[in-house]
């Protein structure tokens, strides 16, 4: 089994160093994408959002992490079953188990990644010396900067997404339904070892704005079809978006594709260290400039980019949707995606 960090505790150590710098004694994490970044735990993936619950505890004094789980399944080698606390439907029982994590009871500044109103009150009662603070900026800061190993993980996920997209492109033909295209993506990525699409694959006949929900609509000659697919592989996200013409592109479609590619290249080139993304994102044809790793994280409008940021850029011009993952390198910003941009 492979995980975002394998059996390497590099991410946990980076986080602990950042906690030291920020004066944070412990973290209570609830969001699974952050937990898999920190610990490498490979646990069952559920879709949608869930309210905050203390599913992972990181303690600076002991330099280790503890996880809410029923067993050591999917845990990296440096976290054995002694680092697992069992679940409970009773918040008081759960808070008792959390408070018993070695070192946590003495932690004064405790960062969390959410503030569920009921859970917060109960945790406060069980951790009386703790002051709870927003761990968001600390986590974002430490997660954003990718290492070569991180980028290798992202590249592997992108590779699966691209091969899934290639299968979808091979299925595009008049008479095929949008839903069959999204199914073709799921089938291919499964054969490649990725178990769940990162999001419901959007394979839709283009409208005035890109559509997100494939349905029973059939492709017809002359349609543009937007194809956006993503996977989670070993915890990392891999995404790609392209557009294809059904049965040959018209001159108008070709010029829209050229304009979309020009915008994508312009934004890619502009994603340089020191540059805030707000002005890029404000362009009407730019749909996203987000951070990408084990999540798709918004970057603040005034937050400058830095070397080794990895970003997801998505643009749309007249029904042509294009999306690339790019790496902000020291010398240049380069796409990690490698699928042809043309409509053919």
């Amino acid at each position, binding site marked *: 089994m492979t995980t975002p960090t394998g059996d390497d505790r590099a991410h946990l150590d980076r986080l602990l160093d950042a906690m030291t710098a920020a004066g944070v004694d412990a973290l209570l994490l609830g969001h699974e994408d952050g937990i898999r970044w920190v610990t490498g735990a490979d646990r069952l993936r559920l879709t949608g959002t869930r*309210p905050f619950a203390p599913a992972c505890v990181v303690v600076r004094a002991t330099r280790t992490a503890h996880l809410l789980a029923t067993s050591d399944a999917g845990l990296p080698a440096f976290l054995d079953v002694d680092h697992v606390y069992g679940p409970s439907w009773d918040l008081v029982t759960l808070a008792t188990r959390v408070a018993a994590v070695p070192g946590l009871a003495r932690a004064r500044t405790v960062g969390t990644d959410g503030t569920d109103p*009921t859970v917060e009150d109960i945790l406060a009662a069980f951790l009386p010396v703790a002051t709870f603070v927003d761990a968001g900026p600390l986590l974002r800061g430490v997660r954003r900067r990718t290492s070569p190993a991180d980028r290798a993980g992202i590249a592997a996920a992108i590779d699966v997404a691209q091969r899934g997209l290639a299968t979808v492109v091979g299925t595009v033909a008049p008479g095929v339904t949008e839903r069959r295209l999204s199914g073709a993506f799921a089938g291919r990525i499964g054969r490649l070892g990725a178990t769940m699409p990162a999001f419901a694959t959007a394979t839709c006949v283009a409208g005035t704005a890109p559509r997100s929900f494939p349905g029973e609509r059939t492709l017809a000659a002359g349609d543009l079809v937007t194809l956006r697919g993503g996977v989670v592989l070993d915890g990392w996200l891999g995404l790609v978006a392209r557009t294809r013409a059904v049965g040959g592109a018209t001159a108008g479609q070709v010029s829209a594709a050229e304009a979309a590619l020009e915008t994508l290249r312009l934004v890619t080139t502009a994603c340089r260290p020191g540059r805030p993304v707000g002005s890029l994102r404000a362009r009407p044809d730019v749909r996203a400039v987000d951070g990408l790793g084990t*999540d798709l994280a918004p970057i603040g409008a005034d937050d400058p980019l830095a070397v080794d940021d990895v970003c997801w850029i998505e643009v749309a011009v007249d029904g042509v949707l294009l999306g690339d993952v790019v790496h902000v390198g020291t010398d240049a910003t380069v796409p990690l995606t490698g699928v042809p941009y043309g409509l053919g």
Partner: protein
Amino acid sequence: MAATADAPIDLDRLRRDRRERLVTEARAAGLDAVLLIGSAGVTYATGADTPTADVGVARPRRTVALVPTDGSLPHLWTWWPDGAPPDLPVDHVLPGLHLDDDHDAAALGTAVAERTGTGAVIGVDDRTWSLRRALVDLTTVDARPALGRARLVKTPDEIACIRRAQHLNERAIAEIGPLVAPGTTPAELTGAFLECCAGLGATGTVLDPVWQVVAPAVGAGPRSVTGDVAFPVAGGTDPFADGDLVWVDTGVEVHGYGSDYGTTWDVGAAHPRRAEQWSRLRAVLDAVTAAVRPGATGADLTRAARETEAGRRTPWLRHLYLAHGIGTAPAEAPLIGTDLGDEVDAATVLGPGTVLVLEPVIWDDGDGGVRCEEILLVTAGGCERLSAPGTPEAR
């Protein structure tokens, strides 16, 4: 079964009935408005479509609903305007917000204050830190008790959605089941399953489908902290082998409603004890089903299950439950047989319109065991099964 599963679903009525239930419960709880940021609650309150996504994608781009309790229409903030329900006027559908961004959260806080007035009591289902700061001048309370009471009783259209999702899931399993053989990987099975579901009309998946190879003894690992079988755990790419015991748990969505399909497979020849275990599982299901009627309590159900397996292991996983509700969340109230204990179960009274997923487990340590799931609707006179029978000889 097929004819019922294809029964038409009136989406306008579905949204109207649900909103009415939510507003009634929220008003009874003294709330002036409900602000929802969790996917299950937003779907319930508005019917807005959101692409089903891994949490790493879903969390940063949440759909947000503000539902006033004065009967006026909700406001929706969404990244997917083509998923907005048709009954919302265009000025009630607003651009998506990043709720971990103070600027966006403050804009939402201002909008909430403008629409509800100062002094209003706002129910919330979850908060980001930015949202907590943005709402600091408003009175916020936990909306989930009211939301839970609303969701406890399903409307006819909700029941039709669950029935359809389950039927679709069952058809997909029937199609891909024959692929389960030595050499096939769980990931391949997932791909084939999701491809099949998309073709049948599912709009998403509730969880990464589980095809878990379970060791015949708990002590063989993974190391459990509950003393029970560690289930469900993430699947992988190790191929199935002859003699593997596979526990299956899948859920797909139709109009935001999940199915919940569970079964057990032996790869190759079945273990000699399997037939006996299946018949014991059938007996537990039959006993619990016979106890399900309006006025029955959760404790009546757990007693029926325990008495059927008297002298043996509790016939469900102790970190989970004997039964759970299902709707726009894969496991919602009522939860029966949890570690909250017998008193809580005894206080859980069933009423017509509640949908229960039974998921008993028969386990003989060393020989493995079987699990499956059956979905029941509590009716005026007892209950009706919405799923196919979960045990092989009953199918």
